[in-house]
């Protein structure tokens, strides 16, 4: 298979798709002002080609912040694109679409991946989508777009998740999740008094969450939202850690960018040697794949800001680019199978 990435910093879609011919599948990453226009134009340019799109920054070896980026797969893939609607209340109403698509594409664990762009209610969406994917152990990689809108097959949807199932006809696929944080000290909490609708943590080990966070890190209330770059929470799920960013202070509680539930076990995380972690991820991928056709990744907006602030973003993209054709989306939340995480990178590698 071949991965195409085209971009236009000025938002010119034609410029972005220059050189793209006979695409089998298109992923559109546009800006808030031109999203509708880009979706329509893309459909006009490539009618009938399966596609999904969202509002967000994209990248290959450089980042397109305000223009448009297009990822397309041209050879050796079977793909289907579709959408689950009403995701804020009942994405399951449309689950048969996904079930049929899984059958249609002949999806299997080793060669198929699901990529999704979601407009919100991510945890519920992932539970729903993965409930269908897990029957065939199909991995999912995706992210949240901006402005509560996504597109699928040339149509704009609000309150929906656009997904594609990509079957690599010439090799295997594998999904990865990268975490540049590790546990700080021995801090481990049981969350309670949570509000899952508002993503609020009321108490940690029975004490007000704000106070717990401040007491450990000795930061002012104003510093909490920036401190999350260094010290987010991690939700423990068996051997896995799902990062949760803090959005803001809400009274004595902390509002997050991800749902937290009563009885969730959280740990306090701290930023590790992210360059070493990235090198390790690349080495792991190289060990798993002798030949790499393409890598599609979703990097959290927080990571983008952190790496940019530390003058590392460009180096990061260069390093990932050495794996082969690498492109991706800067997301507002990352998806890995049924896990909705923050401040992470998820990617799928195609042989």
């Amino acid at each position: 298979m071949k991965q195409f990435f085209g971009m236009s910093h000025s938002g010119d879609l034609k410029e972005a798709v220059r050189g793209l011919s006979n695409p089998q599948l298109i992923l559109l990453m546009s800006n808030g002002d031109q999203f509708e226009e880009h979706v329509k134009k893309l459909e006009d340019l490539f009618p009938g080609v399966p596609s999904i799109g969202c509002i967000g920054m994209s990248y290959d070896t450089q980042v397109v912040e305000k223009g448009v980026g297009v990822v397309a797969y041209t050879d050796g893939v079977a793909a289907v694109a579709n959408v689950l609607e009403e995701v804020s209340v009942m994405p399951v109403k449309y689950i048969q679409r996904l079930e049929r698509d899984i059958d249609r594409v002949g999806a299997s664990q080793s060669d198929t991946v699901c990529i999704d762009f979601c407009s919100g209610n991510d945890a519920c969406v992932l539970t729903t989508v993965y409930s269908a994917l897990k029957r065939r152990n199909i991995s999912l990689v995706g992210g949240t777009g901006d402005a509560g809108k996504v597109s699928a097959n040339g149509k704009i949807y609000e309150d929906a998740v656009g997904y594609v199932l990509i079957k690599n006809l010439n090799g295997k696929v594998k999904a990865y999740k990268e975490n540049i944080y590790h546990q700080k000290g021995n801090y481990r909490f049981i969350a309670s008094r949570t509000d899952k609708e508002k993503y609020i943590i009321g108490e940690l080990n029975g004490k007000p969450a704000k106070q717990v966070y401040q007491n450990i890190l000795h930061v002012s209330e104003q510093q909490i939202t920036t401190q999350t770059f260094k010290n987010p929470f991690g939700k423990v799920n068996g051997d896995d850690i799902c990062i949760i960013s803090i959005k803001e202070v809400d009274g004595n509680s902390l509002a997050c960018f991800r749902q937290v539930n009563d009885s969730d076990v959280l740990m306090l995380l701290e930023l590790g040697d992210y360059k070493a972690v990235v090198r390790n991820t690349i080495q792991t991928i190289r060990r798993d794949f002798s030949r790499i056709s393409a890598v599609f990744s979703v990097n959290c907006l927080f990571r983008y800001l952190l790496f940019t602030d530390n003058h590392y973003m460009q180096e990061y993209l260069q390093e990932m680019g050495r794996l082969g054709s690498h492109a991706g989306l800067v997301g507002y939340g990352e998806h890995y199978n049924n896990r909705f995480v923050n401040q992470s990178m998820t990617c799928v590698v195609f042989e």
Partner: protein
Amino acid sequence: MAVGKNNWRGFGKKHERKSLYPIKYVIENLREYKTDLVQKEVVSLQELGKISSSFQQVLKETDTFEEQLQDFGDNFSNINQASGQFEAVKSQIAQSVEQAQSEVEELKNSSHKVEEDFVEMEGTFANFQECVKKIKGCTNKIATIADQTNILALNASIEAARAGEMGKGFAVVAVEVKELADEIKKLVAEVDASVGDVEQGTDQLNTSIHNSQTALGDSIEKVNETYQMFDKITQASEDVTSVQAEISSAIEDSQMSLQSLCGFFDRTKGQYQEVMKHIKYASKLGTTKSAMFEDIDNMLSQIPPVVDDYDEK
């Protein structure tokens, strides 16, 4: 039958429209049960956390106790080692005692020799005193002879004077004899004086010899006592060996008990770690349960809207 204001018959089947409301009802209840379950899970996890924390403390305390036991064992070893040094000290004492006894033995021997010499010296001295007495006797005789000679010379002078001219020559001889006798008496007196000095010296020497003999006797007695004292030291040193053996035996017993105690702790530690492993595993399972609760909730939360949507149609 009359029906009062506050009495109703419930609505029957004819009032019910076809609806999925019962499903919603079940879901709402399921969600309430799930909420209760989650609350219980929070408490369970908190309790598990407390158990884990307490158990960590138990493990820590066990480690500390085991370290203390180890220190205790080391102390026993040190005591045993120190007690083992008694043997070396005892050996050194025995060696020193042996050496000292040998020196004392030599001292005894030489003292006996001196004692014998003193006895011999006493005999020689008695002979000497006898000789001095004999000399004194001889000088007395010489003095007597000199006196008789003097009288004879005086008589000869008188006879020579009677003989007149003829006796003149004899008188001269008589005078010379008298002078010789006087001379002899003078010499005898000097010899007498010297012999008196010798007698006085021998008396003093005799007293000194007696004093020395008495002192030597005392010394020999002390030497014998010292010798016996060394025997007692050797005996005491042997007693130390037996005490050391008792200490070693007691330490050996204690070390065995300690080893058995350490073995117990090792076994318990293994079991503790096993318990800790299970606690951690239970805790890990708890974390996966919370993810499942989230999935369950995410799924259940969609049913009421689906039912509403169906009913609206």
